[in-house]
């Protein structure tokens, strides 16, 4: 038994001394080359990832531009005075230099306070949103009139204002609730953006609530 242990020990010493006394530096070479291959793989993976990220970023930029453009047009209508040329505009997605393949796959939604565009590519969804400066409703003037008549028995037009017992704050609250509804826009058809006034009579004073309507 003792003899066997001694034999094992001398065997281990032989192996260790083989590595220590070896002067050909082949271990150095293998470690160095392995690290070189490892580092190359990491760098190549990083470059590949970076290139992919840049493609995604440029797509995101494109979406951001489209969202900002649409939001800017809605805001400019909101800032225009009612009845003037600037208070009525149309937006066509294809006219703003967006690639047809991109805008065909875009999902555009408008709510009372935001316009958002989402785009799905390779199972990845990108979303770009822009806040709206002016209160916006995603209804056409006719749809809004119907909703107003249902709620207040008056359309809110200058010829048919909302009267007592309904107060302007009730109208604002009702329209704020309507504004929470999100509407999806079809990217292949025209978007109409108009400014509208909802007239309310508070005692003897006529109060006009300004809203921007977005519809197709």
């Amino acid at each position, binding site marked *: 038994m003792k003899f066997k242990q001694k034999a094992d020990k001398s065997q281990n010493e032989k192996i260790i001394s083989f590595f220590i006394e070896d002067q050909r530096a082949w271990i150095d070479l293998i470690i*160095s080359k392995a*690290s070189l291959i490892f*580092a190359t793989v990491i*760098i190549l993976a990083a470059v590949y990832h970076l290139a992919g990220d840049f493609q995604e970023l440029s797509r995101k930029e494109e979406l951001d531009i489209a969202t900002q453009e649409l939001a800017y047009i809605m805001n400019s209508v909101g*800032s225009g005075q009612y009845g003037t040329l600037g208070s009525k505009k149309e937006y066509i997605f294809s006219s703003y230099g967006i690639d047809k393949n991109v805008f065909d796959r875009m999902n555009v939604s408008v709510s009372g*306070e935001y316009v958002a565009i989402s785009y799905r590519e390779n199972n990845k969804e990108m979303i770009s949103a822009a806040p709206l*400066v002016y209160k916006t409703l995603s209804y056409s003037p006719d749809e809004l009139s119907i909703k107003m008549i249902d709620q207040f028995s008056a359309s809110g037009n200058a010829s048919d204002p909302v009267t007592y017992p309904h107060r302007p704050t009730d109208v604002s609250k009702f329209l704020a609730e309507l504004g929470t509804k999100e509407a999806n826009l079809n990217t292949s058809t025209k978007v109409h953006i108009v400014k509208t006034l909802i007239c309310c009579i508070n005692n003897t004073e006529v*109060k006009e609530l*300004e809203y921007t309507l977005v519809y197709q």
Partner: protein
Amino acid sequence: MNTPLFISDDNAFMEPHNDIISTSLVIIGFVVFAAILSSTYFAFDDNSYALDNYKHASMIANDIANYQSIQGSRVDLISAEKLDLLSTPAKDKEKHRTFFQRFSGNMDLSVDISTNDGKYHWTIDRDENQTSKNEIIAASVPVVIELGSNVNCAPGTLTVSVRKNKWI
């Protein structure tokens, strides 16, 4: 004196490690490149945020300067009397609410109007309890303020400040 030692040395003791040095240099170079690239992108992103908000502020400033409810006896004049009323919401809360009615809830804004000689100054703040004044983007337009009558007018500036809130 030591340089010839390395050049004339044939033991090649540096040979296997050259790879590691050159590889580490490439990695450092790549990391620096990626860092510069990302910082440039973030700077661009910040600037575009500032530009968007400036566009909003400028649009609102022009809109308010032409807003009927603060107009004086002429379209191009702003009435000091109406500004007095709007800058103290306690006097007429309804007017103050109507003034900001058309702006979306996203917009946390305030309007400062002052005469160029500094004698008169009005602040109309949407949020009366606003304390934080951080991250403001402002745009100004020149206006003419009607002080009492249209013969007593003073040139001034209307400044709209948009505060960064939790939405934007």
